[in-house]
């Protein structure tokens, strides 16, 4: 019996180890595949033509700048919507709301997280875009703004649930101590609880932003997909084309191994690198500011 138990232990240990390392393995494989499919584009297309302000692949215009700027504009907009709202909601749920409201709010946020993005996109087309057009007197509501608002809505649940967990993990003694010293509830939240939970809150924002930049279906449906290069703030109110929507809309049409095919993978690499940069920046910011006391706590 003892022997079989040992064998069982060994088997389960091995399986858990394999699943752990498999994440690294899969990321490696995906990265290798992206590079092998995307880098040939640099041989087939001049670097200068990748900087062309026009994206029109069927006539061999492969300018990536409008797509990159489109993605950045929509993601920036979504961040401005999702981070304040997400963290605000998390603070409300974790710190302010009475117990019954908390029990009610959490499942609702989870339902929001479970909404298929195509449903949000459809709502964007039939409801949000006409409202935006009439309200702001725009030529069309299918714009970066509509994309930002919907992506914000998609990113909020991610931010709320992660940030709320982080706030929850702050020891009760911190709050009690602050309140005992005469701080108001808001002062306690702003100067004690939130800074103590900073790493978790930042992680939440990062996950939210990453969710927004990678989202495809909704932006493809509501941003109008016009590859216009962003050159002023007005671009928020006009149609844009994102990298993800471009890959999704065009990948089906390309013949394997064509220039267009490789350029689409190159866009994938750019997207990957941008996500990586966001990740690294925020981790670096976190690492720099982590004090010894917080390290001990976490």
């Amino acid at each position, binding site marked *: 019996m003892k022997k079989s138990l040992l064998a069982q232990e060994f088997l389960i240990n091995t399986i858990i180890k394999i699943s752990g390392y498999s994440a690294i393995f899969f990321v490696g494989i995906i990265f290798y595949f992206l590079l092998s499919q995307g880098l040939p584009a640099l041989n087939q297309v001049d670097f200068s033509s990748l900087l062309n302000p*026009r994206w*029109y692949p*069927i006539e061999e215009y492969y300018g990536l700048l409008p797509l990159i700027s489109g993605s950045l504009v929509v993601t920036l907009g979504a961040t401005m919507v999702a981070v304040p709202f997400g963290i605000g909601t998390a603070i409300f749920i974790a710190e302010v709301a009475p117990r019954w409201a908390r029990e009610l709010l959490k499942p609702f946020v989870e339902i929001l997280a479970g909404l298929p993005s195509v449903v949000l996109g459809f709502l964007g087309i039939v409801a949000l875009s006409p409202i935006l057009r009439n309200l702001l007197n725009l*030529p*069309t509501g299918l714009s970066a703004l509509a994309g930002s608002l919907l992506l914000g809505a998609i990113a909020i649940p991610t931010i709320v649930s992660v940030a709320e967990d982080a706030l929850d993990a702050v020891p009760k003694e911190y709050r009690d101590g602050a309140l005992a010293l005469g701080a108001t509830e808001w002062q306690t939240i702003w100067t004690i609880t939130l800074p103590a939970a900073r790493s978790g809150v930042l992680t939440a924002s990062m996950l939210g932003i990453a969710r927004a930049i990678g989202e495809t279906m909704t932006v493809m*449906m509501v941003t109008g*997909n*016009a590859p216009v290069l962003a050159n002023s703030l007005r671009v928020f109110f006009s149609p844009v084309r994102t990298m993800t929507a471009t890959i999704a*809309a065009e990948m089906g*049409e390309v013949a394997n191994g064509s220039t267009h095919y490789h350029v689409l993978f190159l866009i994938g690499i750019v997207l990957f690198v941008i996500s990586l940069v966001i990740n690294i920046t925020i981790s670096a910011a976190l690492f720099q500011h982590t004090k010894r006391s917080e390290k001990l706590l976490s």
Partner: protein
Amino acid sequence: MTKIIPLTIIFFLITLSACDSPPNSQDIENNSTINQIYIENKGSDTIVNLALAWAEAYQAVNPEVQISVTGGGSGTGIAALINNTVDIANASRRIKEKEIENAKANGIEPVEFIIARDAIAIIVNPNNPINELTLEQISAIYAGDINNWKEIGGEDRPIVRLSRETNSGTHVYFLEEVLRLGDNESKLLFSTDTLLLPSSEGIIKEVSQNPNTIGYDGLGYVTEEVKVIAVSQKGSKEYIFPSATTVNNGQYPIARDLYMYTNGYPQGALKIYLDWILASEAQLIVTELGFVPIIKQ
């Protein structure tokens, strides 16, 4: 020992999923014990409703044949034919030289069938007072030279240009025959702020809601929610509405042939199906769906 059971199930599932690969039509036809015949049919979104109607009518009479029809755009269908994942590719434009080269490099020999004709309707919002445009005006609008409806006698509103995505055959046809007015030398492109919408329905929806828009779509897709505009021939001032009659007698300028492509000359069940499509019974369905049949009824 009971803890082992869930693991066994997981391993069992993994093994199962590894064995599961979709059957190829050729394999099935060669296998005499199974009589089902599968035909994979993919491509143009313009043709997808027509192809579905044909598939349903055909399967009702020939239950041993199963036809699966999907859209995605002409480029998508032809790419699938080149990659040898479909039996029939639907296209609302002719296959390009480059695509034929790619196909031959993959050992595929595309064979063309003209299966119906289609008019492309120019559509605007019902509240737009404009009723007719010349082909040259439409070209100037999409090229970005005309940016306000008042320049062509409408209200003082910005023009929002709507187009299908670049993988749509309708997009390519429109680029060549309308924007460039059929001039092969022209390098004119769509204005960069042209909205590229992923579906015909998306265009109809936006045009029906937004009074600033102009769009184009296959006549078979146009609904009551939008207004169809009469268009003149190049260099003419006689405005014509799209219909089966004006397409067949050549009066309406924006009409094209619709195609199906197969790998090599079709054999067996595939040949019978394509012959049926080209005959009068199937062409009657063409008329019902708002397209133009290739043979006189």
